[in-house]
């Protein structure tokens, strides 16, 4: 593989506390190195910003519910798809782009790794088929556990070790990455058309509470010492007044210590927290709970969060929180898809328009940004839009613009029909903070990489790390006064090198690169009880054979496997 040197850029690498130093980044054989020979290909980054490839901690980019969204929304393609280019596959879709467009668009923004946020285990071959058809970017996928019958059954009996053994088996069988919980207990209740809206609502039949599921999974995750922590979408998403239950469930992480060999410091990642930071008792007196939530997050070391910023677009909501999507459908009366998955989870999909003319949408927009602006530790606060739920991932540059520019926020605020009501219900108008490029790099690079336990591979520019290098057309010493230029620069990287290959130049994709699927192989002594329980369930309860359940190796042709050894 050729040698490359990115010369004279303003390097921003929070992993090494480098903030805007003019330096060179040398690349050889897909890794970052100290120096290269004089024959190396030179990328001139003079007057531009150089960062590591972006790391997206949470996006729905591959799998059954994403594909339901694509399938049942032909209108998402109409007039919204770019024209195909020679040497590349056809691109289609806006809020739920095709796999090809997903890969190309992330690369255009300089992203190297994306975590598929919710993989139903039964559908894991589907998720991997889509990942396989997504070019350029490295991906992993988090199987969902929060409503799994085995997990609920073991935890009801207080069997953390058995839970851990089951989690280890399932992560390996699905070639997954970690432990995702979505509306723990609530989605299981949805099997009967019910929900768990508080931490103490018992799940029908299983008689276990969401609080017990969360606590048990936190313990099992640390028992295994996985690279990533428990990744949770909390109960009672999207309802006014839910900030209290959000804080209560975050408190469950208190007293649990991180135990792993991957440099991860948190025990809980609370995702798209915007949807969980609502005050008020109904949509009439709906207001921001961002301050209360962030006051708690800022003082708790064991937590990381991602924002889930609303971008005021027409988009497609999709989540394993089946009862929520049914509830949402009752609010907007658009089409509704649902998939209940036997023994494991459920999912729902509903199109949604975050309309700037609607007061609630404006408040949601403000809350997402407030959370980022109230954050004290940017290495624990990450930029997402919960793609595509609060907006498509292609809007990250816009979110960055809003976070970096009060002027841009005020412009959007002024465009809202109910500007005054939004100002009354939120804090955004009074916040003057403007984030720096260094803080943006923390939120999109070093932070999420560390949170995922992969800070030695992604999110930094230290020698030995994966050679994912993005160059953006922004002058660190002389930032543009027009915030639109910030968005534009992050939308299309001036250059993006992925695993040592130049895949994007001047915002255009050049090459399909070499993508990888990252999964975690947990090795632990066999647990005869769990083995027997799994075998029995496949003969009685499932409708597929246990032989045909684990994802076959050929479906993951470019694996990058992280081994985790659990001692007995």
């Amino acid at each position, binding site marked *: 593989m050729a040698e490359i040197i990115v010369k004279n850029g303003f390097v921003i690498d929070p992993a090494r506390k480098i903030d805007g130093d003019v330096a060179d980044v040398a690349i050889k054989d897909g890794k970052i190195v100290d120096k290269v020979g004089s024959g190396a290909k030179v990328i001139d980054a003079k007057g531009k910003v150089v960062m590591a490839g972006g790391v997206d901690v949470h996006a729905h980019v591959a799998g059954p519910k994403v594909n339901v969204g694509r399938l049942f929304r032909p209108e998402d393609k109409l007039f919204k798809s770019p024209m195909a280019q*020679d040497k590349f*596959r056809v691109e289609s879709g806006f809020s739920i782009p095709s796999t090809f467009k997903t890969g190309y668009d992330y690369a255009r923004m300089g992203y190297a790794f994306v975590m598929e946020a919710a993989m139903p285990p039964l559908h894991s071959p589907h998720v991997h*088929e889509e990942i396989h058809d997504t070019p350029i970017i490295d991906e992993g996928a988090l199987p969902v556990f929060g409503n799994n019958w085995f997990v609920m059954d073991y935890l009801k009996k207080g069997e953390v070790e058995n839970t851990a053994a089951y989690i280890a088996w399932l992560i390996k069988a699905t070639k997954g990455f970690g432990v995702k919980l979505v509306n723990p207990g609530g989605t299981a209740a949805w099997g009967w058309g019910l929900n768990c809206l508080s931490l103490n609502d018992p799940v029908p039949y299983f008689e276990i509470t969401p609080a017990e599921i969360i606590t048990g999974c936190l313990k099992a995750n640390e028992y295994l010492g996985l690279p990533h922590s428990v990744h949770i979408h909390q109960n009672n998403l999207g309802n006014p007044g839910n900030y209290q239950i959000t804080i209560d469930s975050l408190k469950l992480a208190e007293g649990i210590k991180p135990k792993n060999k991957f440099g991860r410091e948190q025990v809980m990642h609370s995702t798209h927290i915007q949807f969980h930071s609502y005050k008020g008792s109904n949509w009439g007196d709906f207001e921001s709970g961002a301050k209360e939530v962030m006051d708690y997050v800022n003082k708790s070391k064991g937590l990381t969060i991602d924002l889930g910023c609303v971008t005021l677009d027409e988009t497609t909501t999709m989540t394993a929180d089946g009862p929520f999507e049914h509830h949402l459908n009752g609010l907007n009366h658009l089409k509704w898809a649902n998939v209940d*998955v036997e023994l494991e989870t459920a999912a729902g999909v509903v199109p949604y328009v975050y309309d700037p003319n609607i007061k609630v949408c404006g408040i949601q927009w403000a809350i997402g940004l407030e959370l980022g602006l109230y954050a004290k530790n940017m290495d624990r606060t990450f930029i997402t839009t919960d793609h595509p739920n609060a907006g498509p991932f292609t809007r990250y540059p816009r979110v960055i613009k809003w976070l970096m520019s009060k002027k841009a926020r005020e412009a959007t605020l002024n465009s809202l029909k109910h500007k005054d009501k939004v100002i009354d219900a939120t804090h955004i108008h009074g916040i003057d903070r403007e984030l720096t490029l260094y803080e943006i790099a923390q939120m999109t690079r070093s932070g999420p990489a560390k949170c995922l336990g992969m800070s030695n591979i992604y999110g930094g520019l230290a020698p030995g790390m994966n050679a994912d290098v993005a160059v953006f057309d922004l002058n660190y010493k002389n930032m543009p006064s027009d915030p639109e230029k910030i968005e534009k620069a992050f939308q299309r990287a001036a250059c993006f090198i992925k695993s040592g290959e130049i895949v994007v130049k001047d915002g255009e994709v050049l090459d399909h690169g070499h993508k990888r699927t990252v999964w975690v192989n947990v090795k632990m002594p066999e647990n005869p009880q769990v083995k027997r329980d799994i075998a029995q369930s496949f003969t009685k*309860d499932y409708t597929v*054979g246990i032989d*045909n359940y684990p994802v076959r190796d050929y479906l993951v042709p470019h694996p990058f496997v992280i081994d985790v050894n659990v001692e007995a």
Partner: protein
Amino acid sequence: MPKLITQVGCPYCGSSCDDIEVLVSDDGTKILEVHNACIIGTNLFFHANDSTRPMLPRMRQPDGSMKEISFEEAVDWTAKTLLAAKKPLIYGFGSTNCEGMSAVGRVAEKSGAVLDNCASICHGPSFLAIFDNGYPSCTLGEVKNRADVVVFWGCNPMHAHPRHTSRYSIFPRGFFTQKGQMQRTIISIDPRQTDTAKLADIHYMLDQGHDYELFDAFRTVLRGHDIPDVVAGCKKEDIIRGATAMKKARFVMIFFGMGCTHTDGRNHNIDIAISLTRDLNSYTKASIMAMRGHYNIAGPGQVWSWQFGFPYCIDLSKGTHAHMNPGETSSIDLAMRDEVDCFVNVGTDAGAHWPIDAVKHVKKHPFITIDPNYCMASEISDLHIPVRIAGVDEGGVVYRMDNVPIQFKAVLKGLSGVPSDEELFDMIYERMCQLTKTEPVWLAAKEDRKYPVKV
């Protein structure tokens, strides 16, 4: 020693049973016994033993006869024919694996083809309804474990999906349905006294073509309003009895088939069926599912949705973007308007399934069949290219009617020299790239494909 292979997937209907046991001869070339499958599935496995299975492509000669040619020649002819055509139609894919459906995407883009699957003449109206109204559904295990009211609307699984009722919908004892059939109320809605109707607790023998009215009556009763004494030929008290059973159920499951999608009303029938399901969710839990016909006909809907954003009727002829407009870009309509100038029939039998006028139109132009067996389409083709049988001598992913991916395995060694669909499409694609002097687009997958192409 013959070898018993267990948990084999069945290449027949949309039930995609994966509990088949197949006894295979010592050398892995003959199927000796098939256990657990229905009679149709069993016969499909035994078909693979047929010593007259085609092993080489056959090309139509000027005198009308078919002559065996090499795969290289067949690939070359197909590539040239596709490139020469202004608007080829590539159709079928009910009975092959997803690997093939994924590979054909490149061929279709390169040739500016229309890509369509059997849903176009099958559950196409259901897709239209899903675009409009959504699809509250579930996996078949949910039906087995929870459903206590099961509605079969315009479908007859006892014949069309023979093991559906025993594996998923009527008889099995599931986790919350330990009493099996005893615990379930079965409702059949069919103008005919089918074998499924005979099993039902309530059979609505409605007037043919009046499905929409009956759905509407159920919705009206559910919402507490009065209905006429007779609707669609069914008595008011019977309708109230059925509606009450659904409302009081813990989990209602509605299966619908061709009797609902292809009678008067078509997509509107499915639309109101989905609305009924949505209504029921205000009182209890309800789901709906299309009885998909072939073992992997849900596959192209999935694969092409993630590749192009549409499940069927995908027009790539503009070369710049994918476009779907059923009625305009659907196979039969294209054929009837004589808009396509090359036809490729893959893993299905358009010769048997299509209206004869449509077949006559596509027959005016080059007609290629890619299928493991002789069929009506292969016999009227200009070129027939045999491939391995997905599910018998070729593995791969298939999507069951509930869109659950099942990883099928090969039980036999493939016929020597015969490629899989995936390999064949990749060969055609590479040849098209050679002919046009362009670089193939493999994403990252090329070097690790299951069967790298040797060209």
